[in-house]
């Protein structure tokens, strides 16, 4: 996606925000979306459904492969061809990387990637950008990405997008979970400024936004090692007091221990707002694809 395309989606999202807040709209009335979720998801699925229904559209589909009639060994390619005949667009979540691109070759209707394995999750990236745009600043933002930067797919897509906005990116992670070097070299090439460190304290006073991520237990063979790492990448009230009052805290959710619940009540905490923004952003994507906006 180009910067112009992203900016356009964010602009449309802003126009649609009142509908996300509860005004009943009809921009998508008569439109039927097929939600094919081969992997469970709560926020992405519910926010797509919310976006559709608040604009008068409707959804069909399944929310896990077991609950679909397509679990009997039918290929993704065939499922896509069948469903293309039913719906006006397909929203696909799949555990395999590249599944969305592959599926789009078989779809005769627009197909939206709602996450493909460790691959892309473009609407998540868009809602992250929208959150920065609304709650902080997007152009030239100073942002710290904290936690699992190796496996976390949201942060990879996010840094690529941020590099379009001259962001100053601080990568904060334990060495074993650092951002893959090919990603770092790619985004440097694209004009981002990147600093890597292992401690939140090093950067917290300087940044406009702190993007926390979950560190998964499975990444550590040794449970005591996991405990140690998790403890040092936990955002607390004390820590956040070192930040500027305007610094915002983001998280793709679900969070576990990496943000102390006491942080929730501080004005800096924007992660629930962020997940709400998934609705107007997904409304914008659906409306643009359906040609309701041009």
């Amino acid at each position, binding site marked *: 996606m180009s910067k112009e395309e992203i900016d356009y989606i964010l602009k449309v999202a802003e126009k649609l925000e009142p509908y996300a807040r509860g005004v009943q709209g009809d921009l998508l009335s008569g439109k039927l979306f097929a939600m094919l979720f081969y992997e469970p998801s709560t926020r992405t699925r519910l926010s797509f459904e919310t976006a559709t229904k608040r604009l008068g559209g409707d959804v069909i589909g399944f929310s896990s492969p077991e609950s679909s009639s397509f679990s009997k060994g039918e290929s993704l390619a065939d499922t896509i061809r069948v469903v293309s005949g039913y719906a006006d667009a397909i929203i696909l979540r799949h555990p395999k*990387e590249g599944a969305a691109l592959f599926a789009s070759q078989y779809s005769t209707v627009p197909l939206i990637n709602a996450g493909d394995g*460790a691959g892309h999750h473009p609407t998540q990236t868009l809602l992250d950008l929208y959150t920065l745009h609304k709650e902080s600043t997007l152009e030239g933002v100073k942002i710290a990405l904290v936690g699992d930067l190796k496996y976390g797919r949201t942060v990879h897509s996010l840094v690529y997008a941020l590099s379009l906005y001259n962001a100053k990116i601080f990568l904060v992670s334990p060495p074993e979970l650092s951002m893959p070097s*090919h990603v770092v070299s790619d985004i440097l090439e694209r004009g981002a400024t990147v600093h890597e460190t292992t401690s939140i304290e090093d950067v917290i006073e300087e940044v406009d936004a702190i993007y926390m991520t979950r560190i998964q237990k499975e990444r550590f063979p040794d449970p005591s090692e996991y405990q140690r790492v998790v403890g040092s990448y936990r955002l607390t009230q004390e820590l956040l007091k070192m930040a500027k009052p305007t610094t915002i805290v983001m998280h793709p959710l679900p969070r576990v221990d990496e943000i102390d619940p006491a942080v929730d009540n501080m004005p800096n905490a924007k992660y629930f707002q962020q997940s709400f923004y998934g609705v107007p952003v997904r409304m914008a994507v659906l409306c643009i694809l359906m040609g309701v906006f041009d």
Partner: protein
Amino acid sequence: MKELKVKRIESGTVIDHIPPGQAPNVLKILGIRGGSKEVVSMVMNVVGKTGKKDIVKIENRELAEDELDQIALIAPNATINIIRDYEVVEKYKVTPPDFVEGVVKCSNPNCISNTNEPIVPKFLVERKKPVVLRCMYCERKITEDIAKYLM
């Protein structure tokens, strides 16, 4: 006259300067397997001017350049000699193609191209020397040991 480790052929294609041990993989890429009709001879680990190498000779068949360029993936310095009437009438070095389709599998076990879907693995040749392939589906790079991923 230089010693020829394998008998001279009247016409066909000679692929020279293949890294030692890679001759079978060259045949694999060219789709020459048991069941193929061509008369093929292969020498492995001969000592040439620049150390050990493999050579492959295919009789009575002049392979097309785009077919042969695929072998640059594992034999970047290979030279192609087209033989007619026992003489080399054309000689060139292979150059990697811009795209590779159906030759190499993706190294990412979680890639959609490594499933039972009807899908042919496709790669963009992102760099030619040394060869870097990027999967068109999952975007994972293959930078070394390409021979390991031949289909």
